[in-house]
């Protein structure tokens, strides 16, 4: 079933631009003054410059312009919701309602630089400072790379067997084909001076206190380790799974066809994870896949582009429905009872009317929370995440945090990269002052 569809899992959503396509597209950039796209980019990449460098056949110079602000420029070129960031504010929208394809151009240059296997950087002289980075995701590796550039020695601890964090375990396969997440992590680490220790989990192998004692500074980029509980007592059913676990299982499987989803799949949630899980379910061969969300479609965290991607892949989006109970037979969930919702006094309430949707499996994508171990550290929290200031400093003078675990998270890869970069610069300043 669906043998043709399954190819889509390992097929780029957008085919890479050819040189001709890149030259034509780059010519559309107006090289704006104080360009709105740069302001809209969370990492502040000098977009007009990198596009001009493409147009003058200088792709490696272009890639350096990108990497200077965002060492994950390759992944961000693939997963950034550009339609709500740089491309949304492109002046070509005003001119003819068609922005420059900034994301695809970014991929054009970064692919070429990564294919050389070389980084356009020379590390500063060793500082003899040693920084611990917890988490090898976008925030952690961004931080580690920038610290290494400044001459610091870095040890990265990660709970999982592979580096990359959500890039490796948490996003749809069709966004990062050909093992790109690992290739990118390897590329970033090739700067040298960064040791990665795998399967070392905070609270098990080490504690924040032990890191503080052993290192000059600590960066925490552990993401959100726990999953929200919908209160449906789902644990007892093996055909109910967290969407993040499903995506990780699929990404790590040698043969995706072995990952079974059943004919009818319900995905509960409205974010990017819900869409990634739903579209991949469809590609795995499921006949009916519904993303069911308790609020209005316009309130989904998934971007409009992602919603439309789901719809064109045959996923049904159902809204204003909140899960009420699971209906099970012989230890398997056979349907989910939902209650219709509406907004009253600015709050979401159930209307009392219900509907039951039959299914063969349920994927829960209702959000994640900071892991218990992190919550129990002495770091101050804000809204359940590690409280940080504009430099990503936590309440502890020796600890910085970034990415989804930090209070200024934006739920975007590119924002996590920026927070790691900012933290590294702040750590570098702190360590430099100390030695001065």
């Amino acid at each position, binding site marked *: 079933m669906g043998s043709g569809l399954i190819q889509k899992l390992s097929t780029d959503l957008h085919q890479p631009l050819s040189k001709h396509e890149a*030259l*034509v597209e*780059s*010519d559309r950039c*107006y*090289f*704006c*003054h*104080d*360009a*709105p796209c740069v302001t809209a980019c969370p990492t502040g990449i000098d977009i007009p410059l990198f596009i001009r460098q493409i*147009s003058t056949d200088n792709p490696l110079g272009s890639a350096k312009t990108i990497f200077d602000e965002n060492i994950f420029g390759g992944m961000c070129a693939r997963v950034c919701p550009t339609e709500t960031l740089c491309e949304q504010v492109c*002046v*070509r929208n*005003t*001119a003819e309602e068609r922005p420059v394809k900034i994301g695809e151009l970014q991929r054009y240059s970064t692919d070429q630089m990564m294919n050389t296997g070389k980084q356009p950087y020379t590390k500063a002289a060793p500082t003899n400072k040693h920084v611990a980075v917890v988490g090898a995701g976008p925030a952690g590796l961004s931080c580690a790379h920038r610290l290494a550039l400044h001459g610091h020695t870095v040890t990265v601890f990660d709970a999982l067997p592979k580096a990359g964090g959500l890039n490796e375990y948490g996003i749809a396969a069709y966004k990062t084909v050909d093992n790109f997440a690992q290739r990118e992590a390897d590329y970033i680490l090739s700067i040298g001076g960064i040791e990665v220790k795998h399967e070392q989990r905070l609270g098990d192998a080490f504690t924040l206190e032990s890191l503080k004692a052993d290192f000059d500074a600590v960066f925490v980029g552990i993401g959100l380790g726990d999953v929200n509980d919908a209160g449906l007592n789902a644990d007892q059913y093996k055909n109910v799974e967290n969407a993040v676990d499903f995506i990780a299982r699929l990404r790590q499987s040698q043969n995706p066809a072995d990952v079974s989803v059943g004919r009818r799949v319900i995905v509960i949630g409205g974010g990017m994870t819900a869409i990634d899980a739903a579209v991949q379910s469809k590609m795995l061969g499921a006949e009916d896949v519904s993303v069911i969300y308790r609020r209005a479609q316009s309130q989904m965290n998934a971007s409009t582009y992602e919603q439309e991607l789901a719809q064109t892949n045959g996923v049904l989006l159902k809204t204003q429905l909140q899960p009420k109970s699971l209906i099970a037979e012989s230890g398997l969930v056979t349907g989910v009872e939902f209650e219709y919702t509406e907004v009253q006094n600015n709050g979401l309430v159930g209307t009392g009317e219900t509907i039951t949707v039959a299914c063969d499996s349920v994927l829960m994508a209702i959000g994640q929370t900071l892991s218990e171990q992190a919550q129990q550290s002495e770091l101050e929290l804000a809204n359940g995440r590690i409280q940080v200031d504009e430099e990503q400093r936590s309440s502890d003078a020796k600890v910085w945090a970034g990415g989804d675990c930090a209070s200024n998270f934006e739920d975007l890869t590119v924002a996590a990269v920026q927070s790691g970069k900012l933290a590294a610069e702040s750590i570098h300043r702190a360590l430099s002052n100390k030695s001065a």
Partner: protein
Amino acid sequence: MVDLSSNFLGISSPNPFWLASAPPTDKETNVVRAFEAGWGGVVWKTLGEDPNIVNVNGPRYGAIYSADRTLMGLNNIELITDRPLQTNLDEIARVKKDWPDRAMVVSLMVPCEESNWKNIVKKVEDTGADGLELNFGCPHGMSERGMGAAVGQVPEYIQMVTAWCKQYSSLPVIVKLTPNITDIRMPARAANAGGADAVSLINTISSIISVNLDTMSPEPSIDGWGSHGGYCGPAVKPIAMNMVAEIARDPETANLPISGIGGITTWRDAAEFMTLGAQNVQVCTAAMTYGFKIIDELTTGLANWMESAGYNKLDDFVGKATPNVKDWQNLNLNYIAKAKIDQDACISCGRCHVVCEDTSHQAITSTVNGERRFEVIDEECVGCNLCVSVCPVDNCITMEQQTSGVDARTGKPINPNYENWTTHPNNPASAG
């Protein structure tokens, strides 16, 4: 209905668009295709004496492009026709017979001896061709052998050869000028003095189009070496138009008919050349870039413009802009213009601001009340037109003449009277 028919020196053609002497007019096959497509006439590719010359057997052309790879300039190292003289003469006679309503002018280049010219003009006359064009222009190859631009750069030679041709032929003689000189009026005056019926210009400009940074060879590369070629195409149009206007407004040559050549690609280019004094135009690079079909755009575009502007025939607008071309010292220094930005058309790219700020007069805002907004600061604007030149949106920025009140930049009242540099108090040579 407007009339596009052209009469140049008594040579009639259904429209003023001729193909210039160049590769597109080297063979019967090409010329017939051109006539079938609708071209008004051709200047047959330059004939020389036998034995026929030879061309390089590698690349002859090189190009420069705009960023979207639109061809902006073309360079060539091709010589005159490399076919036997009689082959060309036979084909010319046949095509003229088959296409009597089209202009058939023949370009010539032979050594600077009276007998050589006497001999060849007779042969051309026997074909039934409508006129002669003397190639005093090609800047490469032939000029090393004392022909082409080597003649065109010496006014005395131009006059001498022109006079021979007039003496030995009853056909109209057009002298094709090289732009590779300092003052185009000198060769034009020489042609006039020699009795030329017209001049055509410009021929190509000496050029090296590009260098291969891997092989260090100029392009087009022949076995690792290059030679300067002749440059043409859209990029040379402004140079050509200035030269046409210089001849058209020179009292000595004001009545000398001109055939305009140089980067003509669209009907608008043609109309501009003709308003500056060219009675017809010759096209080459545009045809070599897009094929002969562009004649449909050229004729319909020119006709539509003429109709909308109220011109019924070509003579109604030929030379209409010539009287408005002046020396700088005659320009009105009391004319005040300021840029104006149409905020509804503005897409906020900010290029007008940054170029004005970095390279000119700091006369365009980037923010107004904290918002991204580009407005002209009249107190600083000198009306230079740079913002208009760089704006990507057509007609978004315009130059508005200020006819009354005070110039906000100088604080001086607008003076409605014409005054120029010749009488300006800052001019050491002014009478005032």
